[in-house]
């Protein structure tokens, strides 16, 4: 019974998101385009609602809110990453010492793993190579020792992502 309700909710959320997207992209608000949008959004929502909203919607609001806060920290990290790369590239001696590191995390859900992998790629001096979703293991290429230690020793980012998705 509950699973059915979850499915209907998922379809509704997907439909609203798709229809909003349609309206914003088309920008024409006459009857033909709006009705075509309703039909297309309904088809997409019916076929692929499970891609956007997973059945278990527990604490969805809290997670979205924490994710929203996390994005601003992440944006600042991206700016730092670019200055870091610019410094290493433009420095006459190129202070790089590349290495490949491995570490384990406590994360298991797809969203958390994708967020951490993309965050690692966007932050200073590190790029994700491989992820093992079952063990939560990451292989990361680091351009020097300092960014590698930030992931291996400090683990700030792992803690932040675990906080967002409540997976400690």
């Amino acid at each position, binding site marked *: 019974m509950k699973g059915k309700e979850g499915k209907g909710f998922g379809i509704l959320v997907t439909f609203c998101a798709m229809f909003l997207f349609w309206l*914003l992209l088309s920008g024409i608000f006459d009857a033909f385009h709006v009705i075509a949008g309703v039909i297309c959004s309904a088809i997409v929502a019916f076929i692929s609602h499970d891609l956007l909203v997973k059945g278990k919607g527990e604490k969805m609001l809290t997670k979205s809110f924490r994710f929203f806060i996390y994005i601003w920290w992440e944006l600042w990290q991206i700016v730092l990453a*670019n200055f870091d790369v610019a410094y290493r590239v433009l420095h006459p001696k190129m202070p790089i010492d590349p290495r490949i590191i491995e570490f384990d995390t406590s994360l298991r859900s797809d969203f958390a793993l994708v967020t951490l992998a993309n965050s690692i790629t966007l932050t200073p001096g590190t790029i994700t190579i491989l992820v093992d979703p079952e063990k939560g293991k990451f292989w990361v290429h680091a351009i020097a020792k300092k960014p590698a230690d930030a992931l291996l020793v400090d683990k700030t980012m792992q803690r932040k992502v675990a906080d967002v998705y409540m997976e400690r």
Partner: protein
Amino acid sequence: MVIIDVIVTLFLAAGIFFMFTGVIGLLRLPDFYTRLHATGKCDTLGEVLIITGLLIYHAAHYAHEAPLVPVKLIFLIVFIFLANPTATHAIMKAAYMTGVKPWKLGEERR
């Protein structure tokens, strides 16, 4: 209106600076993986800064003619933030799987 043009120019200049750094990194760094560091990161911020500049310019000068264009530019920014690290990661994984050896300190550049 002049002050807005100055801000827009600053955004575009910063974007071009980071894109330029990416190109220098592509040419200077020693191997495949480190070159991806330069292109994968500088491109993201460079493109986003340039699009932000265009967004401000459009919102200031043409907002009443086409009010939805800034929204589309924001969608572009979100897409770049999602797609760019994912693509970098995919290229990196492909190289690692096919056995491209990572460069170590002290080796000759390739």
